[in-house]
């Protein structure tokens, strides 16, 4: 479970993220949406322990990220928008390296299983330079899955992927949620988020302007007695807020 209480991130006088409080239960997928500059990536980076929050607390499966960062980080995975791989490590060597960092005992079996599941077995000895962007994304996913995290953070995971890769990534996210992982995804592709997310949190200038299950949000922001899509709700909320 991901539990966030009063998360605030300040840069001098500028508030990038303001007083966010929410929880993501195991097996749930929360979409973090907002216009550019809303603070999505900053919030995700705080949640993954990459940057320190100015105020508030973040707990992964009960381990406070500030008090016990090692225990908390062992249980999470962060997937940046662009897969960052080492030029001189093969796909399998990436997994071996990550396994050692996370002290994964049965790394060899898990690597084989992951490579098989991601259809990368034939690329196990390939270097990143020989891989397409989609394949690099798969390597990043395999590295993030190898220690069986209980919380996952995806920053724009579907951007730049072809339709097949998008479908595969979505399926993987849903599968991980079914396995009981708490997941947060930031994305601009709202129609795709609707397919995988159980919850949505809409950010505007660092502040939460809507939060709840997809159904709650649809009910709360119905217009003319009929349900709207997430995209319509998002545009309405963002524009309303701008109008104010």
């Amino acid at each position, binding site marked *: 479970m991901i539990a966030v209480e009063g998360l605030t991130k300040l840069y001098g006088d500028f508030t990038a993220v303001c007083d966010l409080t929410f929880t993501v239960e195991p097996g749930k997928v929360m979409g973090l949406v907002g216009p550019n500059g809303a603070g999505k990536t900053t919030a995700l980076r705080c949640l993954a322990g990459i*940057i320190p929050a100015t105020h508030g607390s973040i707990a992964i499966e009960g381990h406070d990220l500030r008090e016990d960062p090692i225990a908390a980080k062992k249980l999470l995975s962060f997937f940046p928008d662009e897969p960052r791989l080492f030029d001189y490590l093969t796909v399998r060597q990436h997994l071996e390296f990550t396994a*050692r960092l996370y002290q994964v005992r049965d790394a060899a079996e898990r690597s084989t299983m992951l490579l098989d599941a991601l259809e990368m077995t034939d690329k196990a000895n390939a270097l990143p330079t020989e891989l397409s962007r989609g394949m690099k994304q798969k390597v990043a996913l395999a590295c993030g899955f190898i220690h069986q995290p209980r919380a996952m953070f995806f920053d724009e995971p579907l951007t730049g992927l072809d339709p097949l890769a998008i479908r595969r990534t979505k399926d993987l996210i849903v599968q991980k949620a079914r396995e009981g992982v708490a997941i947060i995804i930031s994305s601009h592709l709202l129609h795709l988020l609707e397919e995988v997310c159980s919850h949505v949190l809409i950010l505007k200038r660092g502040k939460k302007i809507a939060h709840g299950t997809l159904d709650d949000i649809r009910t709360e922001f119905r217009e003319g007695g009929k349900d709207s899509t997430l995209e319509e709700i998002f545009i309405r909320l963002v524009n309303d807020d701008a109008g104010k």
Partner: protein
Amino acid sequence: MTAPVTALGYLVTRTFVNGVLFRLRRLRQPKYLFGAILGLAYFYIYFGKILGASREPIGPKFLSNVALGPELAAALLFIATLVMSWILPASRAAIAFTEAEIAFLFPAPIRRRTLVIMRLLKSQISLLTFSIFVTLVSGRFHLGPEAWFRIGGWWVILNTLNMHRIGASFALQRLRERGMAEGKRRIAIVLALIGLAVVVESARRHLPPVPGLTETVAGGGDFLQKYIAQILHSNPLPYVLAPFRVVVLPNFAHDSAAFLRALPPALGIMALHFLWVVRADVSFEDASIEAAKKRSAFLAARGRGELRVQKATARAREPFFRLRPTGFAPLAFIWKSLLKVGGRRIISRWAFFFAVLLAGAWRLGNAPHLSLPLATTAAIIGVGSYLALLLSFILIGQHAAQQLRQGIGAMDLLKTYPLPGWQLALGELAGPVILGTLMQWCSLGTGLLLLHATGISSQIATVIFYAAGGLALLLPAFNFGMSILPCAGALLFPGWFRPQENTGPGIENTGVRLMLGFTQLLALAAALVPVAFFGALAWFAAGKFMLSLEWRALAAGGVASIILAMEAALGIAWLGSLYDKFDVSSE
């Protein structure tokens, strides 16, 4: 054509003005303000005091007494540079555009010829800047108005060279397009060289024999000067050099009249080059795009603090050892570092090389008698080993620090690892430090094994042996220490140590680099104070117990090693805490 050129004018002037304003505005940051002050002071001292001290222009003087010597020599140099444009061209004709220029200009409704003109116009800024710089460095600014003739002269030379280079690449490209293969081009070059050899041979027949070394030394260089004067004035050289002399002549004018007389012919040749280049309708777009990509990759690599662009690794590397999934996590970084340097194959080659070197040194060191060539070889290897060792004191630390600083670029990833900061720091630094230390030990060993070959007394050899042993013990901790300081700087003041901002030109960047160098030296000196203090304390304490000299040295060295190791350990712990506290968002 006016519209694109006007657009280019707008682009160039706006870029220049915005660049100046940006640099002025960032002086509000203390880093750049101090950098600018220090940089200005440096330039003032260097150009104003050091270069100004002699009040004499810098440059070759040995030909100044030969009539027309400098002009003819410059013309020869000019020819050599032109010839290089034909011998060493790029594989395809390319004009230097930035990626942004390519993105905006190539799809625009602009003719190819206009693109060439735009590029030539744009290059004027850098050529003019370079002309001023060369005039400044050569001390010509002390000659009053003559400095302007020099700037003008350099501008003509550089422009002609630049256009000739482009024209040559266009001409060769056209020949290729018309089916002239690389082999044929080489044959043409060889034929041209044979022609040149014929000219040289015919000139040689008119010359007296080459003066001997003894004559030249005894004559105080007069013989050589006269000989060169004769060469320069022997037919057909003056006629061959005439058109090239015309281009370099404005640079040698001493008054306005001479400059104005020399300028029109030089500008005429420059104009001919201009026509040659703009009238050549050669496809340069593909090669220009490729060149822009390479330049962009180079700049990106420099921005990451790397000295060169990492080549795409051709094939997978075999790890030096098998990494088990559990155990001390920093070992994974060492494993990764060893893969980065080439894995088992490359490390084995280096190990073999050092084994051969050590064996050879041992053999030479124990030979009862060495012939002159062998003694020379031994001396070269010995001196080379110690020089390598000396250089490594700085280079290993810098390399390790560079690896860690590159890691800062991937901090998003590193920060998610469930490791305390000190393990990350230790892991990132350990690989380069271990490899570097092993190389240092080999260099030290090679030098020691060759000691006997130098014929020094056994007493001195024993002292050197002990000193080297002590040094070998100190090296790992010393290397860690040397790498911790720049890393700590990068983590403490990321804004000051951001490589992509400090590598560019500019007075303030020079100042920042100077500042960083001084700070590092000061910090190193401060770190060595406790080592020296406790080492000295141990030396005197051992003396109190009437220990022999060797034992006192051992005690002092041992204590110094322990202090240095403790400092390194504390440094790693400190670096780790900086890692933990490092806020990537402040980057």
